């Protein structure tokens, strides 16, 4: 959890909260869900070996069985090429530029956070929304990653204490327990 500086993290948490806000009736906002931890884990995926791209299986342990999700899976050489390119950018490396140069998410976030402004967390919400609107491409990237972090399995760093799943009445992964036939067919 080391990609963002504390100052960057403060900007990003405030921006994420505008996109996925807390509600009075129980949906936690992005900050409480730890979606910035999720994004930090993605941008820093290759700081771990195996990288934090694909959680293992078959079970998380929440519905029985051993906790396999926390053992991340190894990538093949070309899979590593694809994910490093996506995250780190092509950096002038020939095999990463086959489809043209790619800035990479690390750079997208560094630039996007800078454009939102160092004072972003302390300006009024109306001003926050204006700055997000004029940085539309970054806002859309942040939204997709924030949604992923909110509702993905908590092993990826967000969805803290499964609070997003609880709020939306989604049980999450259920293997190996599953559901009974009566639970599939019945109203409740």
């Amino acid at each position, binding site marked *: 959890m080391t990609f963002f500086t504390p100052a960057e993290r403060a900007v990003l948490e405030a921006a994420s909260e505008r996109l996925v806000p807390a509600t009075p009736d129980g949906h936690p906002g992005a900050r409480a869900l730890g979606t910035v931890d999720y994004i930090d884990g993605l941008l820093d995926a290759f700081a771990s070996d195996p990288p934090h791209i694909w959680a293992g299986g078959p079970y998380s342990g929440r519905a029985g069985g051993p906790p396999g*999700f926390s053992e991340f899976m190894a990538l093949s050489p070309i899979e590593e090429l694809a994910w490093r390119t996506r995250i780190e950018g092509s950096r002038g490396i020939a095999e990463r530029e086959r489809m043209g140069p790619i800035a990479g998410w690390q750079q997208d976030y560094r630039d996007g956070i800078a454009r939102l402004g160092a004072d972003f967390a302390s300006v009024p919400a109306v001003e926050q929304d204006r700055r997000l609107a004029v940085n539309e491409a970054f806002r859309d990237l942040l939204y997709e990653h924030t949604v992923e972090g909110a509702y993905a399995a908590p092993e990826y760093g967000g969805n803290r204490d499964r609070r997003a799943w609880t709020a939306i009445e989604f049980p999450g992964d259920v293997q190996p327990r599953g559901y009974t036939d009566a639970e599939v067919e019945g109203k409740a």
Partner: protein
Amino acid sequence: MSTPEWDAVIVGTGPAGATAAEVLTGAGWSVLMLEKGRNHLLALEPPFGPLGHVSNDELKFMRRHFLGPDPWLEPRTFRRTEADGDRIDVGDVNNLPSTVGGGGFHADGKLPRFRADDFKPLSAGGPVDGADIVDWPVDYDEMEPYYAEAERAVGVAGEAGANPFASWRADPYPMPAGPDMYCAVLTTTAAERMGYHPYRAPTGVNSVDYDGRPPCNNCGFCGYFGCPIDAKGDPVAPLRHALRTGRCEIREESVVTDVLIDRTGRRARGVRYLDRDRQPHEVSAGHVVLAGGAFETPRLLLRNELGNPDVVGRFLQFHFQTYVLGMFAERLHGHRGRSVTHLMDDPIVPDADAVAAARAAGLPFIRGGIVEHGAAGHPILEGIHLPQGEMHSSLMMQSMTRDRMAVFTMQGEDLPQATNRIDLDPHIRDVYGLPAGRATYSPHAHEIVCAEHWAPRFEAIMREAGAQHTFWTTSPPIAGSMADRPGGRTPISRHIMGGARMGDDPQTSVFDRWQRLHGVENVVCTDSSVFPTSTGYGPTLTIVALAIRASRALAGLDPLRSTRSTT
């Protein structure tokens, strides 16, 4: 001539390749399977059990390309017509999993048979201007025992006699139907009240212990995922059967680049492939079985300049998908159980209204497809499509587009057109340095008229079932509709057919009726490239049945006979 290393090399490990492997190893052949993707399906040592890679993980399967192909590594391109220029889309174009198990890995396993008329569409319905409808070089009566064998090999649960439109069958399904999902109970009872004929979907998912695999425990991460407990038979069952003979080897991360033809030009001698480090290798084989799917097989033929050049790549067909969404006041918990538990075939056999709609549009008929009674997707998918900001979190809690939504999907028959084709993109290349496959595709008016006819009728069923709001859309989008916008014009169907059609005339087809390449008879294709038409049914069971038939013929085994006389 030296003895080849293998009796057969099979390109691809999806349902088409797995079935060929089971039949050929059963006949005593040695078989090498080459798969360009990774193996997440089963251990390659006895007892060939699950690897534990499959999980209830929406992020891994739906957002992070776990089953491949990664669209950056292996891009495909798309354009509607040549007027679009070289392409309007790059990346994911009808991608089926690139992994051991292929498309079978992520399918939720609905496995209907075709009807007798589907094999003789020209005779049954006549020609249509602007389309090239042909009869298949095989009929239902010949196919029936292969369908029965396919249902036994994969393990299909279903209810014989429940679908009044089905053609005859000699045997019951190997297993009884599994549980009905709650939302489908609502929509099927409504459909019945309105005179339609829904039935429990024949599904390649165990409802009881079968073939050493357990019954489904309804985890709900079904279509687009994979089965963590091997309750889904396709294609783990045929692969395991093949491996158990000791005569089958699966090599993952092995990308076939070339079919090697001998000096006579009439026989293949093996294939060339790249390993995980992209280093080339050659293997020799007595026979080459192409089973890479209806996108990759034509791409390989085109790259190698194999097959009738006037036909290879042409008559690419998808299903024209019509989606009807119904939003209910109550929670439907569609995340429990299989993705779809019921089908109905009513749009496949036109009623008086459908005949009138066709006539009014100047068409001889409209034939739709199976209507799937199913549920919506998972939370990340819902979240990404909701508005950002103020409303996001309360809409997620209401879940009108997940937990309160039921979905009909019609897999509309897509008429074959020569201009709909796969070719090689002139500029875009994949990570292996090979030209990307490019789809050029526009629907025929038939598909549009059919969708516009049926969608309001399906909305009426949804309302009868209790939906408060309904909405319909199609893929590909109808021109000028809300869905018709940049980035949304590529059909998202995972049912891909044609591209190397089979037939008796080498002038108008690529493969013969035994699915042997015209002119190079030790090359056989067992995937849906050979389909002359698309029909309105999911293709997989017919792929498997045809693969059994073609593989038995290749190995010199007797044809299968039905357990019931047809006379």
